[in-house]
């Protein structure tokens, strides 16, 4: 069978929800934080982890925040109390350097206490800079790039063989698309008609040494995926309503879906937004305070120089 439950009914058209990133209403925020409020919390925690002696992948975590929040809070069928429930939807973070964002969102979702994020980079602890599958909610080890989509093909293939309404979502970095294994998997997914498989590309256009288009160009990216037999949806990757729509609209005629999510590396930190040097950072105390202030105010601080270097 190829039928696969999408998380939610499709919305008729690309919706405009201008308040989606705005503050939640006073009433709802008393009950449960809005996605925008959660995004601030998640970003604050990423900054805190990057302020440890180990440092962390700052930029690619910041660009992922809305993508992972929408998936974990609005799209995927998952239960933090039962992280290995066979009926769950599966999210594979192929861009393993997004681990800090994943940890933070999993904590926000309740897979483990937020307080445990203080263990990040502590010697002997479970919170490494790349995803540790020992942690609840982390589905696979990743970090070496180009592994997630092949594994996703297997998870989606099992769903089809089992007749399980499982949804499999693989989150990829754009630089990662330079790995050949991604395209091996892309070919097989469409060849097998795995419409239960969705890829989300965090298209922030930056890799360690610069713009993806200057290193090994990916464009025209939509045409490339389409040529590989996928349905392509393009969205603003910081716009929850657009993400929600792209991730829940019904798949078409046995094709897997790729969501090309335009994002900004280092989003929320004006002094490193869109800069390759945000890839990995170890924030000093002053930089940490400035970054936290930027994220909280959504405003650009007067001065902020983030120590940044290669991973």
């Amino acid at each position, binding site marked *: 069978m190829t039928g696969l439950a999408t998380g939610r009914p499709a919305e008729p058209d690309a919706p405009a929800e201008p308040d989606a990133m705005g503050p939640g209403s006073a009433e709802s925020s008393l009950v449960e934080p809005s996605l925008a409020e959660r995004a601030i919390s998640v970003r604050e925690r990423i900054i805190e982890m990057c302020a440890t002696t180990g440092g962390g992948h700052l930029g690619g975590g910041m660009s992922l925040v809305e993508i992972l929040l929408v998936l974990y809070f609005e799209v995927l069928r998952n239960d933090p109390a039962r992280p290995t429930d*066979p009926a769950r939807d599966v999210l594979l973070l192929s861009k393993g350097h997004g681990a800090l964002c994943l940890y933070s969102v999993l904590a926000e979702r309740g897979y483990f206490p937020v307080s445990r994020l203080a263990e990040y980079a502590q010697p002997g602890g479970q919170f490494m800079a790349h995803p540790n*599958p020992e942690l609840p909610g982390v*589905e*696979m*080890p*990743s970090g*070496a790039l*180009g*592994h997630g*989509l*092949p*594994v*996703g*093909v*297997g*998870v*989606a*293939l*099992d*769903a089809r*063989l*089992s007749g399980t309404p499982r949804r499999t979502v693989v989150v990829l970095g754009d630089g990662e698309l330079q790995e*050949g*294994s991604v395209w*091996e*998997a892309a*070919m*097989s997914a469409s*060849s*097998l008609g795995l419409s239960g498989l969705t890829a989300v590309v965090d298209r922030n256009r930056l890799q360690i040494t610069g713009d993806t288009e200057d290193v090994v160009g990916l464009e025209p990216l939509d045409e490339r995926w389409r040529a590989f037999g996928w349905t392509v949806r393009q969205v603003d990757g910081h716009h929850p309503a657009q993400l929600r729509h792209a991730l829940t609209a019904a798949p078409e005629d046995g094709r897997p879906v790729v969501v090309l999510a335009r994002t900004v590396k280092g989003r929320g930190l004006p002094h490193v937004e869109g800069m390759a040097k945000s890839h990995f950072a170890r924030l000093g105390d002053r930089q940490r305070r400035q970054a936290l202030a930027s994220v909280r105010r959504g405003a650009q601080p007067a001065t902020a120089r983030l120590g940044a270097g290669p991973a």
Partner: protein
Amino acid sequence: MTSTLTLSSRETYRDLLVQAMPADDRLVCLDSDTGLFLGQDFGTAAARYVNLGIAEQNLLGTAAGLARCGRIPFVNTMATFASTRALESVKIDLAYANLPVRIAATHGGLSAGNLGPTHHSLEDLAIMRLLPNMTVLVPAQASATVELFEQCLDLPGPVYLRLGRSATPDLPVDAPPIRIGQAQPLRDGDDLLLVACGPYPVLLALQAAESLAAAGIEAAVLNMHTVKPLDEAALTATGAPVVTVEEHWRSGGLGSAVAEALGETGRRVLRVGVADRFVSMAGDQQFLLEQAGVTVEAIQSAALRALKR
């Protein structure tokens, strides 16, 4: 080496898998355009035969995804592609994640013969035994493939099953049953211990033991069909010098494993294997083995050196 060729371990494995799949819906056969399954009838399990084409990284990753969901995928490719081309997928997706994928690696050793060094696999045992959680199996005759296949089904982690390409001789002895992780004793002897894995090496070791016996040297022969986990107890049950025999480069494989295990005991270990070069010439498996220096004479010579100290 004069022996009757009987069955290929590759074809034996194929028949086992095709027969086992309908009754066990955990099993999935992932092919990579090998041609091994052309014309096979999987019956009610037909949907669980999936040909992923010529893309080994995706093959291993897909297997990992299936295994995460409770399946037991059998991955089919050539030994050298599984162990070198797709190595990172094996390391991370299977070994690190400790998933029950079975890698059916055909064309082990020099069994690809004329196809040349691109298809020879003289590094795979070294690579696979380095990986935590991996079980490494090398049947020495087609019938052993049956035992190892059945026993590996319920192992919790990944398994590397090294198979030949063509028919190989049956061993000229009544071998006791095989248990994964336990060396199979094929011959007794107090003077020397010959440790071998794979069809021709085990056969050559038995032949060398016969020749040595004629010269008054009694050599025991162990079929080390499980290279990992290595049966160290069987190695230390005797204090005799050791000669290892394998269809693999001398570095890294069975000989290295034995030398590592015994190195701190002061035991003498000599290794017979393929010299440190590519076997770049035409010829069948037996011819290439001789050219590469894996011969009865080489074993005898190593035995005499091992006994002289």
